[in-house]
């Protein structure tokens, strides 16, 4: 009854819920309403009461009572607007969760009987619809409601008819059997009833009728083919909503009866229904309303059963000039290409029309699919163009021959004026790239886009080139040249270009082979100077060649000496781009990692586990030995992380953990603690710094890695608990007086308690650990004085064993890299003080979960002032799994400076342990009944972890001129 309580007596809410059971009787609410309504002197008053009433929720038990009161007033009420409100309230109340509205259905139907106002009628039907949707399981109720709806279909108001059709659509019988059994009138064919309203005089009703039909289809009724003809007529309707809905209906029918045969009007021929429908929808791509055009273009994509003959027509557009046939630019390009004289400069008259055409044969308005996509892609509205590109993509994916044909058009779209369209077409091309091989002239156009100033476009294009098939060696050369040009123009694209060349090389080894001497500029007789190894362009060339050489054993013979040296260097430094090669005279550097080998058999993985094993096993070494071993292991792990990028997350994670342990051990070194009080100072500094660092590191471990499981979370929390204990000890030894200690001790014990509650299931695995021992001593601790507690803690900390950190399957460290601003500019960003300046920030994020909620931008001013900026959710893009991109603007402002100075911009990962997995567990286990009772800081940020290198930006706020 908590909901009830809150609503009646809100002030009681915070008092003890469990002890006081209140039983409030239900009439209270309805009675109040009744009184209110009776008090109302005018319709306006009554309306006010109802409006106020509608603002508050009604508990399930009293819904029925309230409904009765409302109905009572409904019959008494003369004013239509009040009745309307009552009707809408009935609908609202029926929606109440847990309330079964069958008890009020009869009353609701009865109200329809004498209602004169059309608006109220429509509203009542809406209420019935709500009731009906809540009682869908009951066929007789549905039948009854449909019957009621059919009766009101003859109403003169469009609103009423609209609702009736909606009701029939949502509740009409779908199963054949039921329709036969029931003898009542409503068992009539609902499709027929709805179909009759396709010709209603009001366009809104026509739309509603089509929508109802679609609704029936969605609910699983098989629509009859007979309505196809009617639907086709609706395509010529004057109103766009009707046409838009009709297009959908035709599409549905074409999916239901693709193979049926329909006659072509005014001829004796017949075609498949899906083809006919396809032609009709294609026709709608040149409709007057862009809403309809978008709709039609979208639906075309999903009509995959259409004959290839019709499909190919969509790209066809016969050109003519002065009644003579003309070839399209695409055809000319193709011809030039096949005749081998590509790239001759075009002359005037090159496109001069050729043969005369028969005037009778020219069809200016095609009834069929002709040129639908040509129109769609040239449309004025970019929404239509995008829809057309999407449809093209879907159709091309299912038909290789169509893919080949639509290539020219897609390539053309690369030059659309709207970036979104360009991007979409590049993505589309990538999706169908398995089916296609690019001609040289097409490649040329594609590559021209590499100079685009938008990074998104360029990166999408790189992705596309990764999986493109090129037919000639000139094509490869062209691609390389353009990519290198791209590299010089936009050096930040380096990684993306290398990756692109890696795939380009491995896909076309035979085409790269003849290019090798030229690319490496080797000469049969002369030694050429050794290229600069740090030149990104040279690396790019090498990446291409090495990847091609992987499946082309003859290639290494063409390499010169320094190439081999460079290979060894690159294999080491850019191992993800350079594959292992079988080079003459040397052993394979490392056997290729075939996917069949599980991670456990991987030697580096083994190494990781072995070193961890070593650490965990050596419990009883002397402190010095343990420290050394830990230090070595940490160093090993860090190096391993650098070498093996797949294991970097794992290695870092464990190294951090060991580091924490190391810090703890160092801080607890007995020697220092035994020193007399005045010499604590040094020890304090060390220990408190260690405690602080451990805390930081544990937060990093918990929130910066994706893939951390609860097994690890326990260990991390445990480590944090130890750090807190250490903090307590240090404070106890430095502060005078006991008062502050009381509070701290209590807080610490609370945390131990909550730890126990959170991880109760994991405790058995923590034998001999700090927390294990602590829990044993708990009764003693609670009653002890703070000084006692501190002493116990200190000994427990020393004696406790080192917990084994189990490793999860996959672990990735979140990382961020700020691309923009580069921090290299020497020109300060000048702006007037007091005003704002926008700084563009562009960064890539990897392995960040929920970046919208956690990633923040921090700006540090030279005066120590720090500013935290929350980027908008829309600023994040998701180019691939685990990767995100942040492109946002940061607003800077400051008072005037005398000279330009640098500010620091960095990315932070905000965390909130309440939102973490542990907290979720708490909420679930203990506060399940009323989670809202616990005051939780929603969206609060508990702390932040910097996870990108800071970038310096030179700025200069100038004093405002007077």
């Amino acid at each position, binding site marked *: 009854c908590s909901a009830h309580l809150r609503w009646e007596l809100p002030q009681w809410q915070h008092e003890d819920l469990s002890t006081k059971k209140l039983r409030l009787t239900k009439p209270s609410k309805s009675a109040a309403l009744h009184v209110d309504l009776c008090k109302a002197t005018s319709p306006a008053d009554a309306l006010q009461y109802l409006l106020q009433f509608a603002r508050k929720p009604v508990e399930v038990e009293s819904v029925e009572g309230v409904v009765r009161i409302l109905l009572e007033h409904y019959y008494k009420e003369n004013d239509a607007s009040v009745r309307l409100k009552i009707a809408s309230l009935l609908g609202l109340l029926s929606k109440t969760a847990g309330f079964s509205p069958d008890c009020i259905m009869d009353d609701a139907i009865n109200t329809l009987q004498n209602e004169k106002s059309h608006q109220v009628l429509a509203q009542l039907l809406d209420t019935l619809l709500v009731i009906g949707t809540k009682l869908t399981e009951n066929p007789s109720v549905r039948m009854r409601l449909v019957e009621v709806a059919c009766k009101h279909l*003859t109403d*003169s108001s469009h609103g009423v008819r609209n609702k009736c059709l909606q009701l029939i659509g949502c509740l009409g019988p779908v199963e054949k059997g039921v329709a036969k059994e029931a003898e009542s009138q409503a068992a009539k064919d609902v499709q027929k009833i709805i179909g009759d309203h396709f*010709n*209603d*005089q009001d366009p809104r009703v026509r739309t509603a009728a089509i929508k109802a039909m679609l609704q029936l289809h969605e609910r699983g009724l098989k629509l009859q083919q007979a309505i196809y003809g009617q639907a086709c007529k609706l395509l010529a309707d*004057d109103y766009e909503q009707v046409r838009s809905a009709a297009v959908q209906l035709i599409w549905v029918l074409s999916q239901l009866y693709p193979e049926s045969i329909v006659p072509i009007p005014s001829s004796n021929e017949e075609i498949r229904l899906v083809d006919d429908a396809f032609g009709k929808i294609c026709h709608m791509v*040149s409709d*007057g309303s862009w809403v309809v055009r978008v709709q039609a273009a979208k639906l075309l994509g999903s009509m995959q059963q259409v004959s290839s003959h019709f499909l190919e027509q969509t790209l066809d*557009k*016969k*050109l*003519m*000039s*002065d*009644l003579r046939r*003309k070839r*399209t*630019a*695409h055809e000319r390009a193709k011809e030039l290409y096949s005749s081998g004289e590509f790239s001759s*400069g*075009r*002359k*005037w*008259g090159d496109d001069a029309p050729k043969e005369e055409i028969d*005037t009778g044969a*020219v069809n*200016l*308005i095609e009834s069929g699919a002709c040129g639908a996509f*040509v129109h769609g*892609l*040239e*449309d*004025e*509205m*970019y929404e239509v163009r995008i829809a057309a590109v999407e449809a093209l993509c879907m159709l091309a994916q299912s038909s290789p021959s169509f893919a080949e044909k639509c290539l020219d058009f897609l390539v*053309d*779209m690369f*030059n*659309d*004026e*709207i970036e979104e369209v360009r991007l979409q077409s590049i993505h589309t091309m990538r999706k169908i790239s398995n089916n296609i091989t690019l001609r040289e002239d097409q490649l040329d*156009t594609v590559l*021209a886009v590499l*100079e*685009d*100033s*938008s990074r998104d476009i360029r990166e999408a294009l790189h992705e596309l080139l990764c999986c493109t098939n090129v037919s000639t060696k000139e094509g490869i050369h062209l691609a390389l040249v353009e990519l290198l040009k791209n590299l010089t*123009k936009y050096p930040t694209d380096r990684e993306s270009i290398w990756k692109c060349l890696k795939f380009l090389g491995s896909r076309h080894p035979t085409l790269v082979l003849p290019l090798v001497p030229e690319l490496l500029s080797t000469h049969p007789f002369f030694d050429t100077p050794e290229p600069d190894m740090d030149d990104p362009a040279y690396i790019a060339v090498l990446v291409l060649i090495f990847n091609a050489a992987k499946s082309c054993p003859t290639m290494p013979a063409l390499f010169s000496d320094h190439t081999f040296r460079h290979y060894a260097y690159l294999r080491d430094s850019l191992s993800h781009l350079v594959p292992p090669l079988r080079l003459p005279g040397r052993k394979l550097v490392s056997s290729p990692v075939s996917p069949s080998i599980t991670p456990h058999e991987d030697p580096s993985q083994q190494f990781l586990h072995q070193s961890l094993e070593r650490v965990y096993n050596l419990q009883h070494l002397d402190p010095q030995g343990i420290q050394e071993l830990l230090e070595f292991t940490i160093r090993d792990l860090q190096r391993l992380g650098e070498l093996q990028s797949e294991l970097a997350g794992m290695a870092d994670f464990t190294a951090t953990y060991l580091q924490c342990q190391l810090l703890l051990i160092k801080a607890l070194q007995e020697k220092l603690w035994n020193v007399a009080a005045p010499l604590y100072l040094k020890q304090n500094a060390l220990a408190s710094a260690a405690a602080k660092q451990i805390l930081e590191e544990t937060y990093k471990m918990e929130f910066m890695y994706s893939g951390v499981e609860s097994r690890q979370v326990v260990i991390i929390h445990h480590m944090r608990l130890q750090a807190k204990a250490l903090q307590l000890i240090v404070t106890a030894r430095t502060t005078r007086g006991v008062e502050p200690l009381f509070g701290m001790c209590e807080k610490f014990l609370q945390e131990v308690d909550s730890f126990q509650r959170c991880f109760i299931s994991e405790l058995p695995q923590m034998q001999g650990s700090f927390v294990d021992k602590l829990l044993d001593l708990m009764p003693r601790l609670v009653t002890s004085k703070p000084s006692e507690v501190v002493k116990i803690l200190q000994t427990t900390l020393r004696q406790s064993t080192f917990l084994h950190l189990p490793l999860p399957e996959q672990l990735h460290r979140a990382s961020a890299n700020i691309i923009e601003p580069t921090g290299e500019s020497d020109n300060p960003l000048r702006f007037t003080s007091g005003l704002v300046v926008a700084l563009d920030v562009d960064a890539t994020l990897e392995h960040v979960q929920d970046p919208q909620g956690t990633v923040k931008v921090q700006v540090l001013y030279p005066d120590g002032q720090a500013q935290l900026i929350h980027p908008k959710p829309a600023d994040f893009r998701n180019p691939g799994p685990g990767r995100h991109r942040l492109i946002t603007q940061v607003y800077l402002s400051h008072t005037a400076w005398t000279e330009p100075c640098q500010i620091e911009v960095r990315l932070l990962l905000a965390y909130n342990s309440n939102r973490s997995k542990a907290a979720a567990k708490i909420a679930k286990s203990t506060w399940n009944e009323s989670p809202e009772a616990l005051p939780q800081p929603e969206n609060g940020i508990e702390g932040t972890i910097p996870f990108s290198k800071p970038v310096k930006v030179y700025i200069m706020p100038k004093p405002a001129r007077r």
Partner: protein
Amino acid sequence: MRGTLRRRAGAGRHRRSGVRAGQDVGRSCILVSIAGKNVMLDCGMHMGYNDDRRFPDFSYITQNGRLTDFLDCVIISHFHLDHCGALPYFSEMVGYDGPIYMTHPTKAICPILLEDYRKITVDKKGETNFFTSQMIKDCMKKVVAVHLHQTVQVDEELEIKAYYAGHVLGAAMFQIKVGCESVVYTGDYNMTPDRHLGAAWIDKCRPDLLITESTYATTIRDSKRCRERDFLKKVHETVERGGKVLIPVFALGRAQELCILLETFWERMNLKAPIYFSTGLTEKANHYYKLFITWTNQKIRKTFVQRNMFEFKHIKAFDRAFADNPGPMVVFATPGMLHAGQSLQIFRKWAGNEKNMVIMPGYCVQGTVGHKILSGQRKLEMEGRQIVSLSQFAHGIQGKVAPDSQHLCSPPLLLQLEVKMQVEYMSFSAHADAKGIMQLIRQAEPRNVLLVHGEAKKMEFLKQKIEQEFHVNCYMPANGETTTIFTNPSIPVDISLGLLKRETAIGLLPDAKKPKLMHGTLIMKDNSFRLVSPEQALKELGLAEHQLRFTCRVHIQDPRKEHETVLRVYNHLKGVLKDYSVQHLPDGSITVESILIQATAHSEDQGTKVLLVSWTYQDEELGSYLTSLLKKGLPQSSS
């Protein structure tokens, strides 16, 4: 109830000079008489003539009356001189004081072009008897500017409405409507969007007549994208290898499209080479392009909040001295056919270098340098001084011009100019092609189509196609010819709500598509039509209601008593007329609906009963049926 009155909508094409082959299009001026209203559509001049023939012959309209009295309004579709060039002459010199309608951008740009035209004609060629600057100003004062889709009430009956037409900034199609008759005039329009303008659009207004231009009646064009791409690629390549690109353009229209194209490309590709635009007319025009953003295409309209696309970042004003600057550059220069002016000067400077390029974005008339180089001539004979062409002015603005080549002759002082630069041709046209025309017809669903602006042979083809595809009449009148089109207008009649409700209540649901039969009285009074119930009509006219009743006596052989006969009749009728309400009244009579049947014994023969059947004329059908039924006698079995 359907009116079948016939009215006449006359549409005449007013004078157009002889059609030359090629892309020659003359002055546009159409006179439409619709339901007694006279509207003049466009008031263009002919570029090819320098005498009286350049303006339409306005005396044709009224033999000797004042134009203002005859014409109800003048509508100008867009600012091209062949659509508005004769306007000051017409309004100020011939004399017209009525309203002139055009869109806001047209009103803004039109006077600039007229002034330019005037300057060249009067100041350069020294013609007299031409309109003055003041006349242009006075003329513009008579102009009423309209918004898109705004219905302007010219007078009580005549209303006009503008639709977007693409083509050039501010170009519009106009719907002219009187009562329920309407005409749509397209002017020039473009059905495919370009880089700065959208596509023409019209709703399903179902006019009685659609007057459409048909310049490209026999052409279906390729996608614009290829052309744009080619153009950009060529410019880009030339600039990359350090060459200079010259693009001769006409000041308005295509020039802006190309500017936007290059501007966005420069922006996209991060290019640095300067782009220049020769100054003068263009600067003013660009100013208006900046102002009328709502008239441009989706992209410009949408990005306008961040940046007005016509605030060119990369395109700067050109100075003579820049032509000699080293390094790559792109220059737009007028005029477009390289026959004079700045474009020719620059061409002469740059022609010698094979790195450079000239791109001709439009058609060139024979005899111009542009035409020569396009047809492949590599050695040009040039006069030592600048060519003075009499037709130079026109061609500042128009793409479709036919200057006479004789004007190009000048005293010889010939220089050989070798053209080493690359010459490219790129056609950008802003007229609807055959498909576009058909598409517009499909959108508007007119009852008749009239083609103007085009060659007879080409129009014939299109006409045939239109008739074939849409099954509507298509006309293509010659100059000066009048076409009369009969319309079938529906006559609106006011119906009283009570009657409507009553009548609709009787039948089934009203069906929009089918005519419906109704009973009522049509009152035609004071030029208005009203359909009212008979009672009300009587009341209004002060007439007493007369009832018309038919009575008929039927003799039946029945020996029984009267009331028994009545009962028999009643049972019989009840059996036959199941769907009607048959009642036996206590006074011994029978009613079938409103028909009364009474039985009396025959005064002479008691065995014969006389049935009196009486019905009003409204029930004539049922009454006569009943009579014939009774005449057949009663069935014997009923006894």
